[in-house]
């Protein structure tokens, strides 16, 4: 199970500190949502038992600029997350097979509907369930976040769209263990397995993208391998 986190300078703790905590909490690795953060991944992977996924979170004001960033970062990074939150960005993200994850689609004025859910399923874009506001806010904002999560969950379940789960922690203190998130999910209407599966989806995505980025990969099912010379 992986958790997708912000690391210094985007968050309050460095990647190594969050990873140390994540290891103790029972995660196999972390996905670093890099906006400005760019730790030395090779060294960290060698030094710690925790895996690091070199991801980028694109924070663009509109689809035009997001599209440029997607083109730029796709070949460089192992995982591409687009920060949603407006209807235009959500729509753009679910129609782009090049994007792996649509983050916090319900944030702010963002909304979601059956058209987007179908597009996300067809293009394999993972929809993120953001548990952050449930964990860290209260009162009206939290009620709003809970009802948004419910709507999103009903759509994702009905259309069988792929999804990921994250608490979007900004420091090692905001990190929560998988069992705690599963317990919380159960209280707010998710299945226990659903939450854990959403955390496992990050590993599957990372593994798939790493395979695609490896040199032997040509297309799904086609790989460069040993062949016989016929001269």
């Amino acid at each position, binding site marked *: 199970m992986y958790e997708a986190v912000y690391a210094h300078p985007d968050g309050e*703790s*460095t990647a190594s500190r969050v990873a140390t905590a994540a290891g103790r909490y029972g995660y196999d690795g972390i996905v670093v949502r890099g906006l400005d953060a760019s730790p030395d991944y090779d060294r960290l992977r060698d030094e710690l038992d925790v895996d690091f996924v070199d991801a980028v979170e694109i924070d663009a004001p509109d689809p035009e600029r997001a599209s440029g960033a997607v083109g730029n970062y796709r070949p460089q990074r192992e995982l591409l997350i687009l920060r949603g939150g407006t209807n235009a960005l959500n729509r753009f993200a679910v129609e782009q097979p090049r994007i792996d994850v649509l983050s916090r689609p319900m944030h702010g004025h963002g909304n979601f509907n059956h058209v987007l859910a179908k597009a996300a399923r067809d293009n394999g874009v993972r929809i993120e369930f953001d548990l952050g506001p449930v964990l860290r806010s209260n009162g009206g904002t939290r009620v709003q976040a809970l009802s948004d999560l419910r709507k999103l969950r009903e759509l994702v379940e009905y259309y069988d769209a792929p999804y990921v789960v994250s608490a979007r922690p900004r420091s090692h203190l*905001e990190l929560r263990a998988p069992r705690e998130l599963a317990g919380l999910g*159960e209280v707010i209407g998710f299945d226990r397995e659903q939450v854990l599966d959403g955390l496992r989806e990050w590993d599957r995505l990372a593994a798939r993208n790493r395979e695609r980025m490896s040199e032997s990969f040509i297309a799904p099912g086609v790989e460069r391998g040993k062949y016989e010379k016929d001269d």
Partner: protein
Amino acid sequence: MKHLPKHLRPRWRYLAVEIEAWPDASLNRGAFQRELWYAAQNLIGDSGSADADLTVLGFDSADGVAETIVRARRGTVDDARAAIACIDELGSDPVGVRVRGVSGTVRACSERYLHGRAGISEERDVVFENESRTAAVRNSLLDVRGPDGFTGATQLDFE
């Protein structure tokens, strides 16, 4: 009042909880109990809170880390976990919480899961982002003091 016969007494589960904060935070039992009740009430409501009957038993804190035992009624452990996960601040200090394990007796709980993590061992001057800062060092973990709050780091960031 005369206490209940054994078969009528409630069955409890004890959760070993670990709390972590920045080194300047003051962690105490009263604040944690209050936040736990708030968290439970906001998440599972009055009836759920009454069922879970969450009570903080022991509380052992030193320099930004604490260990405690939370008692919950048997069968409500998942609700208790969820409520504990929703604690993000004690007073105004941000905290990280984790359930280390669950036992059927206080004794088993403290013997198995609470072993006293090392508190702050020293203060040290470090160079972080090309500036000289002070850091609180605990094993290989460092909390670097900056102009606007702390930054969590490890020894690896300074090699």
